[in-house]
């Protein structure tokens, strides 16, 4: 674990879930914030429908490590450190459409005209880059069994697939007819009752402006399949019952009870994210805020989410965006962490995974890392002929 990494448990301190709104397979649960200090504001900056190349090290025009993806928009985060109200970032005027847009770093400080602090970040790409960068340099010790490519270029180029929100059937309509609550600062998106994403900002006005940007975000590809195969999801685990209410007050109590039932439902459905430990990496210290990204402790039997968040020093969640990994992505993360934990020794790694060395080779090939091996199982089999 690197020095700015630590094991943590996610929570949504300072937020509570509202009543879900269900349309077809999509369930949207609003997240409400009762106290809004207003010292952290997030605005969107549109990059048009262009391919983005993000330079991760070195200068913008140097050759070096780069992250390439469709990047439709970035967020501009403005904050103050003394609790006074932050103003939303200024617009830079319409940009000319370009085929490829170069970005310098995932998170980059910007000049602000009012004395506050401001930075630009590429939402979710920050987290995705964190996942792609896992052990991307390949084996540190070239044990017997690795190929020369493993030494020279590690896992590069590392690729993953995701789908746009627009490709998830029903999500666009659900976002359109969704009614934004008055104190809403976030939303939990469920597709077929699988947690797809959580999006939280600090200020209700910012949420209102960014609500529709969800359709441009990327989601785990498994979710588009879920959306096809599940027509409807039930609203709640148990329907509303007035019980034996015989006065108007008793009816009001029954309604309040139902509300808390729904809140429990939501936390049950989101348990996969909030009950499992994650490895957080501090990306930027903003005092009193911290921008972190996290990867899960990979376990192929559980749902895994990557994401990023901004947390206030009292633990209040001020910003969050998460991405649900598909099963193959979880397996890749799992393999890599196990390999790294065994100092890339293939035999020891196989032991810790509870499988034979041959099986590990097959798993590596299936996960797309066959080029690391000097003698991938397929080649060995071919040689036997």
């Amino acid at each position, binding site marked *: 674990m690197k020095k700015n990494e630590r094991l943590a448990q996610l929570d949504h301190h300072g937020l509570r879930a509202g009543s879900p709104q269900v349309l077809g397979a999509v369930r949207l649960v609003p997240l409400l914030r009762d106290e809004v200090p207003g010292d952290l504001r997030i605005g969107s900056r549109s990059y048009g429908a262009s391919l983005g190349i993000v330079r991760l090290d070195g200068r913008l025009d140097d050759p070096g490590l780069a992250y390439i993806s469709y990047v439709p928009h970035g967020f501009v985060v403005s904050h103050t450190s003394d609790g006074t109200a932050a103003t939303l970032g200024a617009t830079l005027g319409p940009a000319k459409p370009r085929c490829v847009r170069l970005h310098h770093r995932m998170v980059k400080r910007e000049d602000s005209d009012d004395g506050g602090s401001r930075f630009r970040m590429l939402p979710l790409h920050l987290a995705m880059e964190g996942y792609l960068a896992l052990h991307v340099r390949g084996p540190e010790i070239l044990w017997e069994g690795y190929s020369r490519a493993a030494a020279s270029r590690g896992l590069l180029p590392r690729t993953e697939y995701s789908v746009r929100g627009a490709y998830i059937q029903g999500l666009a309509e659900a976002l359109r007819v969704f*009614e934004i*609550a008055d104190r809403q600062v976030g939303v939990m998106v469920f597709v077929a009752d699988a947690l797809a994403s959580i999006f939280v900002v600090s200020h209700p006005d910012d949420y209102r402006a960014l609500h529709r940007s969800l359709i441009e975000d990327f989601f785990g590809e498994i979710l588009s399949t879920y959306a096809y195969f599940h027509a409807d999801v039930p609203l709640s685990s148990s329907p509303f019952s007035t019980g034996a209410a015989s006065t108007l007050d008793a009816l009001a109590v029954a309604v309040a009870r139902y509300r808390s039932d729904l809140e429990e439902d939501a936390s049950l459905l989101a348990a996969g994210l909030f009950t499992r430990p994650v490895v957080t990496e501090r990306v930027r210290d903003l005092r009193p805020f911290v921008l972190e990204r996290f990867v899960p402790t990979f376990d192929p039997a559980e749902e895994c989410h990557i994401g990023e968040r901004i947390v206030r020093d009292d633990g209040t969640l001020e910003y969050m965006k998460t991405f649900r990994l598909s099963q193959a992505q979880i397996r890749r993360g799992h393999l890599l962490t196990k390999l790294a934990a065994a100092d890339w020794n293939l035999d020891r790694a196989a032991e810790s995974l509870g499988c034979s060395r041959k099986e590990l080779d097959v798993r590596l090939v299936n996960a797309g890392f066959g080029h690391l091996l000097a003698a991938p199982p397929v080649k060995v089999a071919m040689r036997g002929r």
Partner: protein
Amino acid sequence: MCVAREDVLTFVNACFASTGQREFYSDGAGQRVSLAFLHAYVAGNYRALYARTLALGLNHANQARIVGTLLASGREARAQSRGEENALVTRALHALPTHRAMHLLEGLAEAGVNNRRTRAITRAYLDSPRSKAFRAVKYRRSFRRAALHAHVPLDGETLSFFARGWKERRFTTPIFETFRRAHYAEKDLYALPYSIAEGLAAKHGVERAAFLARIEARMTPTELLRRRAASEADEGKGFALDGTKLSPTKVASYVLSLSIADRKAREVELRALLSSSASAAAGRSLARFENVAIVVDRSYSSSGSREKARRPLAVALASVAFLRACSARVTVHLTGGEACGDEIFLAPRGTTDLATPVLAALATSPDLLLIVSDGYENDPAGVTGKVLEVAARIAPATFVVHLNPVLDAEALAPKSLTPRVPTLGIREAEDLPALVALARFAREGDAATSTLDALERHLDARVRAFLSPPGGAS
């Protein structure tokens, strides 16, 4: 439950709410398909009842459609109900706003509907001596099309007006003469109806602002309202709007189209406009309520669609104003829990938490509880219906009606909260007394006499009132 009664009530309900335009939750095509089905089904199976629904005050789009459907299928009318059908169709046609009637007649010509009855009714309508020349000028294209198709004999100056138009040397009918002169001299066009003068003003190259200032006297109240709403430049120029001549729903739509800041700046004027229009409408309807509570759904979905911008919210706002004008006591309860009394500052925002305002309204123990909502509640969903079911036991003296400005196209009916509470479509706040009467009738039907007879009796009374001459007891 009698099938005929159920079918006709479903039809009436849909015809109060929908005009085939796009809604927040569904598209226009779905609405049109549903309406077309309902019209064809009811006209085919219950023709006499279909004609009699004209007396119920359905929205104008559907009234025109009923008249058109009946005239196009005259052969299917039974001999014994033909007399009543004729009377209803004629009365309805004359009661429709002129532009709807003219477009209906033109539509009949386009569809090739040409039977003796249609020709006679078209002739009677076009020949009405009071407004023949005016209609010939204002609706020139529709008039000509309908008159030619229905073989209406054009005589005297009307004939030369359509044959030679402004190229005639001289007319003695004043409006024809004005129309002719306006083609040559700018000063004469200000005596023409606004929609006609507009084209001629362009021809003379009159500057828009100068034209609007001079034509104002010739605008209809609705044109004035639309003009005022359409143009920011007219701000403060003082198009005086006369609330008494405008429907409260139109005024409410206008109010809601303004920004909150504008509404605050012109609060006194807007309140006066809304209340004068509501009082006038209440005066016309002669309705009277005692102790009423109204629950207004101001959630985001009340923003309607691009075609019906803010219509559901406007209907709710107009209903509040209407009730204030004709009730002894009104309490207003909003979703999202804002203080009562400033509903002219409403904006379609937030979730639909109907249960809280409904419980608050029930706590005031009203005789009548009206819920104006599109029926999609989500904070939390599926609660208010059950609350109302229990409330019917707790507070049996309160009569609850759910008024829904939106037709759910797939269900062919406005979305209801619970089957126990009558749900009725509403398009104009003025229809409120008629709808409450219909709801009371529907509930009585549930209790004991759920027969077609009861519906027939109710319709009988409404038809008699509709057919009695205007100015009488109607």
